[in-house]
């Protein structure tokens, strides 16, 4: 390779950057072994390249270190963040491994086909109290109410009170399809603690006005 050609094709820069094709590379090497100027050029380019890479790497290292320092500035909040994460993990674990499986089991038990005890309730007439025996573990309790004869209502409003004062449940029921047929209610037996209960039956006319038409009193006993 002639010196002029080496200068024209920027052979020193290309050589150092690994850009010269094999033939040109070896021709240039042979040339710069003979040519003091080209050997200086190669050397200078090699020095520049090595230092350029070192400068870029140092700058990149400094930048990544300052990023790390910015992150470390948040360090005082780290324990609180960790505690929050821990709490979140515990809550998620509780929900996932305990609460949700338990709820699924309860739903499955409630929705499975099953028999339930049912009682025909008589209106309180002479103060006598009806005792209802509920099997332990029963899911539901059916109450059939004998609706007193008289004016027909569009709907019935049933209010269940414990010890005659604490409301336990309110049920809005449509009038039975057949005149004189009983009104059927289904209660959650697991929520009925043993004790005295009063069920107030009110009729509701077409204008929404309610009127008490019967009072049922009963005693729940578990067996």
């Amino acid at each position: 390779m002639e010196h002029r050609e080496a200068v024209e094709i920027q052979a020193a820069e290309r050589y150092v950057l690994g850009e010269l094709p094999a033939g040109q590379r070896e021709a240039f090497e042979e040339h710069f072994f003979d040519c003091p100027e080209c050997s200086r050029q190669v050397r200078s380019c090699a020095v520049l390249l090595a230092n350029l890479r070192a400068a870029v790497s140092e700058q990149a290292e400094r930048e990544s270190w300052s990023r790390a320092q910015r992150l470390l500035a948040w360090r005082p909040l780290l324990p609180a963040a960790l505690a929050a994460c821990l709490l979140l993990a515990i809550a998620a674990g509780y929900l996932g491994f305990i609460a949700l499986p338990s709820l699924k089991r309860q739903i499955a038990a409630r929705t499975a086909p099953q028999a339930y005890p049912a009682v025909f309730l008589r209106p309180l007439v002479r103060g006598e109290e009806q005792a209802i025996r509920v099997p332990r573990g029963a899911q539901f309790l059916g109450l059939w109410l004998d609706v007193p004869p008289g004016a027909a209502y569009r709907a019935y409003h049933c209010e269940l009170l414990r010890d005659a004062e604490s409301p336990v449940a309110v049920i809005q029921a449509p009038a039975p399809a057949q005149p004189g047929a009983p009104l059927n209610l289904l209660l959650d037996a697991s929520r009925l603690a043993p004790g005295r209960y009063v069920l107030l039956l009110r009729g509701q006319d077409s204008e929404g006005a309610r009127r008490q038409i019967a009072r049922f009193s009963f005693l729940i006993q578990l067996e």
Partner: protein
Amino acid sequence: MDAAFDREYLERLIARDPAVEEHFVRHFGELIRMVVMARAGSRRLVEDVRQETFLRVLEILRKQGGLDRPERLGSFVYSVCRRVLAEQLRQQGPAAQSRGPDGPLDPGYRMLIDERLVRQEHKRRLERLLEELSPVERKALRMVFWEDRDRAEVCAELGLSQDYLRVILCRAKARLRSSFSALEKGFPSKSRGYRPQALRGETSGGSKITEL
């Protein structure tokens, strides 16, 4: 252009003049190092090729009593170096065995990055240059040098020309032209001993280097 070596240099080399021998070893040792390193050569390979090349060159010169064309000493050293390197590579693996001693030497030709050449003052000057580059150019340099990404891939990704690195290198050279003599510190031609005529001007405040 001037020839780097002359008859006097050769005669003194053959006569074992310590100053000329020192210059010969430092000057060509550096060039051989660059040739081997540009081919992904290890430090050990560099040393093996240097030693063997010097041994053979000096043996031939002393046996023949010189060269017909003393100004071609460099070419002669290169041809011996090339042959020694090919032999060493052939010993290294089956892929290299298919190459003859005069075939192309291309085991992993790459950028010539020699960490021995890194100096604090050069880095500082280049850092200032880096600050003047566009964000895309800086990103490209970072991807190539810091993340060791493939250059062609980086160029394609950032929409840069394949020549960008050469352009930046040329810009750096131009920028540092005034202080370029510092880069030559420790260059073999600065030996205090004998220097061939064509290399003698290099120490005068980098006057030759500023011609870049």
